[in-house]
């Protein structure tokens, strides 16, 4: 490794940078030259930030979200409704729902969706942990916010199937026309889904 590096540091940096998703060789080269033009501490700070991410980040034992502390800040927050839990597929989905400001409960991160084609069954997801949380008695409602695709739908159905017998209310995030879209401009799938998910007034 060290003799590889000594041969061509620029080449090595470009190879490493282009391992990021969405970064091709051209962008990686541009980034490498940009780093060379910066004061030396910039590269050190970036390298440190990346390294600490893996060292310091772990999982919250309660909600299974990635977190620098256990329990995570959301699970620790006393102002959150402990009876309401929103179930998502990925950690970044928590961010999306948090940004909406509309959810005052807690979360549970499944770490994926059921997909037998990828060898992922209920046992590979954090469903056991969710059942344990529900079993401890405080949760009244689970909002399933899995993706509106085949795997997300099947995961939601599976969750409803195992959660309902525990006496907890199970709801699903509505899908349909995006806010700010006038009905006449919405695409057919969204209109159809919105019609199917219509509510009593």
């Amino acid at each position, binding site marked *: 490794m060290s003799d590889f590096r000594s041969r061509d540091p620029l080449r090595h940096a470009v190879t490493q940078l282009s391992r990021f998703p969405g970064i091709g060789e051209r962008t990686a080269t541009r980034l490498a030259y940009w780093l060379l033009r910066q004061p030396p501490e910039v590269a050190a700070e970036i390298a440190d930030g990346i390294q600490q991410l893996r060292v310091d980040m772990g999982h919250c034992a309660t909600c299974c979200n990635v977190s620098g502390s256990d329990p995570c800040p959301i699970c620790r927050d006393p102002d959150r409704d402990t009876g309401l839990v929103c179930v998502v597929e990925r950690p970044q989905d928590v961010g999306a729902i948090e940004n909406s400001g509309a959810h005052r409960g807690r979360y549970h991160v499944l770490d994926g969706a*059921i*997909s*037998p*084609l990828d*060898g992922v*069954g*209920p046992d590979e997801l954090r469903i056991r942990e969710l059942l344990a949380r529900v079993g401890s008695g405080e949760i009244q409602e689970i909002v399933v916010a899995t993706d509106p*695709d*085949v*795997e997300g*739908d*099947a*995961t939601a*159905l*599976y969750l409803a*199937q*195992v959660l309902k017998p525990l006496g907890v209310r199970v709801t699903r995030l509505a899908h349909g026309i995006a806010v700010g879209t006038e009905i006449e*401009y919405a*695409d*057919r*799938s969204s209109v*159809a889904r919105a019609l199917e998910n219509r509510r009593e007034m």
Partner: protein
Amino acid sequence: MLHGDNAQGKTNLLEAVWLLATLRSFRDSRPSRWVRQGAAGAFVRATAVGHTGTRRLEWRLSGRQRSLRLDGGAPSSLADWFEVVRAVLFQPEHVGIIKGGPDERRAWLDRAVFTARPRYLDVARDYRRALRQKAALLRDGRARDAALAPWNARLADLGARVMLGRHQVLTELLEPVREMHTAIAGGSGDAGKVALRMSSLGGEEEGLTAVRERLARALAEAQAEEIRRGRVLVGPHRDDVRIGLEGRSARLYASQGQARTLVLALKLAELVAARARGEAPMLLVDDLTSELDQGRMGRFIEVLSGLDNQVWVTTTDPRWLGPLPDGETVRWRLRGGAVFGETVRPAGESASKPLSAASDPVDPTP
């Protein structure tokens, strides 16, 4: 009308139109094969005048990356794109819809449902996906009731939508098929009644809830057998379209000529059914050379002339087609991938004299 010797690019041009209509090729499903050897990418650009107005379409493939431009910008959804160009395709091997296996009939009908209701594409794709997921689960050996239940629920819902979509479009096609079949077959004996129905649904109208429940029950009954055989045994992926001619199965009893006439009638019926929706898909006919006897060919061309749809026909020898409607026909000759011939004129203006071959047409009309 596109004419020229074999391997001059006739079908290529047709394929480009089909690609814009469906984002698929009818020759090879692998996009990497659509690019000329040694080239980095490919593009198709077109101006389409249709029921959504004058639209500019551009399809581009570079590497594995496909990009679409509609009127110079990215289309907001695929549904918007598919709205612009609709097409119905006829190829000689489509005779397999009559004489081949159930998969060929399902493929035809699914394509017809998609042309009539573009949203069906999502339903059919999700159904196939759920089917593959459940099949993987069945093969996995961990298939227990609790794990299968969500997949069965998805398959019952999506499957019912597939079945209803097919049933509704087949019902819409029945009268037009009979009408078109009589028009092409003429008084030649087999002009009798054509019958169309799905093997899974009777003629009666059922609602989504009823079909979904029926499919869910069938899946539940088949569960043990499915686990034992490791395959999904019930659902519209095993369905068939029963096509009858004069009370007998066309698959078993239709002659080659009768089968060709029936396929053309099915394709033309899609155009007629589209008219009721206020749409006029294009008809793409690949290699119309020795498909029909002269009488049927003449009547086929006559029917085409009576429809309002744009028709693209390729042939090696225009004489086979007989006289084409004056003033409405544009003749292009293809040689070495290049197009020779008339420029497209607005309807009503008469076209210039044909470039070749058709100067000595054989009149096939009786």
